[in-house]
């Protein structure tokens, strides 16, 4: 369901969907918005870990290929 727009206070940014609650994303409900944020945070953490592990792996492969580690 569409979240009804709240009246914006002076100087407050109004989102494209009409409401001014920064915790709510677009036309999603508060519960869906919370779920989206939660998923985004979890996915970012997992992606960060994977990228870090890949950096370490690429570094190690490079070192092996140039012959430093036999």
């Amino acid at each position, binding site marked *: 369901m569409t979240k009804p727009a709240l009246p914006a206070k002076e100087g407050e940014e109004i989102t494209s969907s*009409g409401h001014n609650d920064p915790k709510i994303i677009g036309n999603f409900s508060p519960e*869906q918005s919370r779920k989206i944020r939660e998923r985004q945070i979890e996915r970012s953490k997992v992606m960060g870990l994977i990228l870090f592990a890949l950096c370490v792996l690429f570094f190690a492969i490079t070192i092996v290929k140039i012959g430093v580690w*036999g």
Partner: protein
Amino acid sequence: MKEAIPTDLYIPADWRDFWALTKPRVMSLVVFTALCGLLAAPNSIHPIIGFTAILCIALGAGASGALNQWYEADLDAKMKRTEKRPLPDGRMGKESALQFGLGLAAFSVLIMAVGVNYLSAALLAFSIFFYAVVYTVWLKRSTPQNIVIGGAAGAFPPLIGWAAVTGDVTVMPLLLFAIIFLWTPPHFWALALFMKSDYGNAGVPMLPVVAGRKSTRNQIFAYTFPMAGAAILPFFMGYAGLLYGVTAVMLNIAFIIMAAQVWRNDSEDIADMKPEKRLFAFSILYLFILFAVVAADNILGFEKVVYL
């Protein structure tokens, strides 16, 4: 007025759903057989490069699984065993699964080529193509022999593991390939015998659905003998030592006995299909032990004698 977004499908998929898309249990068997192929090779490989090869094989298997689930979302929704997968359950969009599968496939092949060698990368690319296109798109819905030819896709990992170490493909890795290739039909048909209604409902022409249970049981028994022959050959051809030879003979005798029990069973009632369930469970153990012994035999340096 802007319309409300009505569905949870627009909520980003959980990372665990991406993980489920890679078929982790299948991946574990792929990683294991690839590792055994790598350890059975005569040369040595730097642990970092060996780890990279296994990682790429795992990622390639994950990519195959993701592409398979992307294409088969409609079939998966019709089967109890698969209806809770991320796509049929509506936890993820099809587009995400396709992009994830293609990305993972490209990434795994690229890293294999750059970090390990071109032959293993080419074999990995071909195995992903074989599983995702030849098996999933072409064979699975069109012929009851789907898993006979499709079994080749699952047989590639030890070959790739071997090629990662040696940079070539000789008789021994081809024998390892043949073992898995010939093991696949009895393994899957044993499962299909007690999952017949599931496959039938989804319209997948698995052998029990098309030819009946009697014919499937005959074929399971028939495939067991070339499989046993391929499994014992490495010992007689001097590619594996006594540890492997003794274990392979014992495992294959047990497999043949269980396949014979399936062959003699004429029940149509799933409750009476204990021999089929036992054979299916044993077939997994069989492959794990056989491949573990291939690696152990080489690592422990058992003497290899050519008898044939």
